[in-house]
């Protein structure tokens, strides 16, 4: 058997394996829907401004706690989207602003219309938005406004960018750590394995949330939001890699005995090369499935940390940061739409879990 032909055969085997996984995954209807949803959410991650209606930082104290302005698609039977105008009156006794929707006065809404200008991925500048008021001087609040009169909808779009990225990057770091350390542990064995196993056990028996909090509290106050963002990501992944490490180790132990690894070794391949070229591809689908189940855990953790004030810090926007605004029950009773970021969290986590379960079933139909 010559080298080239065996490499070609490898490719065929792997390709057909992927196709098999895809074929099985396609049969899970919920997982497919969720995958579509996640792809959409990552499009928001790429260009949150396009999906925003207003600049998320634009404040106006006179427009605090404006309720949700429902979008209506038809006007007198013809397709012409609009939202009702909201007018405020101060309550004579409580002196609180009370907002009333007035469906008689319609604010026209257009798709792919002009709004504030922004840069896509920091490169080219544009001012096209998915949704915008027909009259650029008007402000509309599709999901209401917060205490500073900022647009909740647009802030959720930007929060999506941060939170989904934290989840993805933290899991990517975990995967790297898990594959390298777990692979080393399973492939080299002996003392290395012992040490790494003890570290994994230690990390797994750590009371995670308190330690995370303590670590985040230890971050210098004067760090920029970007620095904090990366620090939080690293902190999350430091504990997150252990599950994956274990799994990879187990698979390595099983694979080590198999013929093709022995063949590669006899052919004089270096260890790293054997691991990366021959062993990792055989269980890549499991890694992907496990990772997609790890991302939602990271998202929940980030959200919780930020909610407690020890994660992502304002002015950066994440789902957790947005939910901090909902901490006060009295405020919440007044402005329940402040909870909407939480619904987005639930939907995203649900979607990740469904996709992950679907992938796991598809990758390994016999393990339960």
């Amino acid at each position, binding site marked *: 058997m010559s080298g080239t032909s065996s490499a070609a055969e490898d490719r065929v085997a792997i390709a057909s394996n992927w196709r098999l996984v895809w074929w099985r995954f396609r049969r899970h209807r919920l997982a497919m829907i969720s995958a579509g949803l996640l792809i959409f959410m990552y499009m928001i991650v790429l260009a949150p401004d396009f999906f925003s209606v207003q600049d998320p930082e634009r404040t106006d104290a006179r427009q605090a706690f404006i309720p949700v302005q429902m979008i209506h698609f038809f006007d007198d039977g013809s397709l012409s989207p609009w939202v009702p105008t909201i007018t405020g009156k101060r309550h004579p006794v409580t002196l609180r602003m009370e907002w009333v929707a007035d469906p008689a006065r319609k604010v026209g809404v257009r798709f792919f219309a002009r709004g504030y200008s922004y840069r896509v991925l920091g490169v080219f500048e544009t001012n096209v938005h998915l949704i915008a008021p027909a009259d650029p001087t008007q402000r509309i609040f599709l999901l209401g406004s917060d205490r500073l009169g900022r647009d909740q909808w647009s802030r959720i779009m930007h929060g999506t960018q941060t939170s989904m990225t934290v989840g993805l990057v933290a899991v990517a770091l975990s995967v790297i750590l898990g594959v390298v350390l777990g692979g080393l542990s399973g492939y080299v064995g002996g003392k290395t394995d012992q040490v790494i196993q003890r570290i994994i056990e*230690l990390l*797994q*028996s*750590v*009371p*995670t*949330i*308190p*330690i995370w*909090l*303590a*670590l985040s*509290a*230890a*971050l*210098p106050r004067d760090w920029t939001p970007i620095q904090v963002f990366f620090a939080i990501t690293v902190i999350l992944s430091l504990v997150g890699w252990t599950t994956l490490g274990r799994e990879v180790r187990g698979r390595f132990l099983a694979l080590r005995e198999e013929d093709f690894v022995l063949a590669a070794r006899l052919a004089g391949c270096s260890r790293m090369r054997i691991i990366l070229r021959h062993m990792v591809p055989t269980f890549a689908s499991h890694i992907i499935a496990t990772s997609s189940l790890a991302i*939602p855990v990271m998202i*929940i953790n980030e*959200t*919780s940390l930020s*909610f*407690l*004030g*020890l994660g992502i810090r304002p002015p950066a926007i994440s789902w957790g940061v947005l*939910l901090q605004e*909902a*901490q006060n*029950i*009295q405020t*919440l*009773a007044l402005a*329940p739409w402040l*909870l909407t970021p*939480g619904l987005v*969290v*639930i*939907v995203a*986590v*649900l979607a990740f*879990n*469904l996709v992950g379960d679907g992938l796991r079933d598809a990758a390994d139909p016999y393990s*339960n």
Partner: protein
Amino acid sequence: MTRYIAQRLLILPLLMVIYSFVIFLIIQAPPGDFLTAYVATLASSGSSISADQIAALRHQYGLDQPFLVQYFLWMQNLLHGDFGLSLEYQRPNADLISEQLGLTLALALFSFVLTWAIAVPAGIYSATHPRSLIDHVLTVINYVGVATPNFMLALILMWLAFAYFDINVSGLFSPEFVDAPWSFARVGDLLFHIWLPGLVLGIAGTARLSRIMRANLLDELNKPYVVTARAKGMREWRLVLRYPVRLAFNPLVSTIGWYLPALFSGSLIVATVMNLPNIGPLLLRALINQDMYLAGGILLIYSFLTIVGTLLSDVLLALLDPRIRVES
């Protein structure tokens, strides 16, 4: 068996030493120390403190010593049961912690019992009636339960109770019992209030646990020993409870090792949101105010509870599973 337990018990102090060192590292990490924070607080409230006084205090607390010396001092005090003084509250940390510890444990354990009481029967039902309507409903509840962060659930429940029923569900006691001495009436009041936070805290765990139970039991129900038991002429439900459930239970017991710690650390968030007497919010304040020895003490207690949880699950598993018991 006794040797096995003794072995595990011997590891405990070693683990505690490792944890304590890591924890000390972490609480020492922020720039400045708690005196810096203290001075800042004093300054903001208008009073000031002289440089000499600061130096004296620094010396008194051993803050001018090298890191390792400080660590050993801390450990030495801990071994004598001295958790140090809280700077913020100007009271012994041990008092502050022990005031909250009982209710912290009560909440976690209550939630634990609730979780198992719900998850195990639900898992058994789902596995014995796969693809039935109730199984599907439970599956949906499970997915949503896992996907909802603790604090979100707490917020939603509190908001609904406040906005629609005008009741305040935060706290573990009615106002008249908050500072009352312990009595039957106070315990009753506690039992009345604890179930909501207990449920909130346990919901994700319940969902996860019942999914594990369902999967395990489905596996076990296909094993040949079930056919053997049926071929004996046993009643179906007795058979299911006596054989496959018993076996499906073992992997569940090993989850106590991570679930109990998760409950303790999860209660931190729920307690903060729902304003419960708990060491969680205390830790949060301590971390934010750099009240380092208080934070360190609480972190140590969390670690201790974690290790005990793991130990407990190992021992329980050995008791339940003869295969482990005989080998060890």
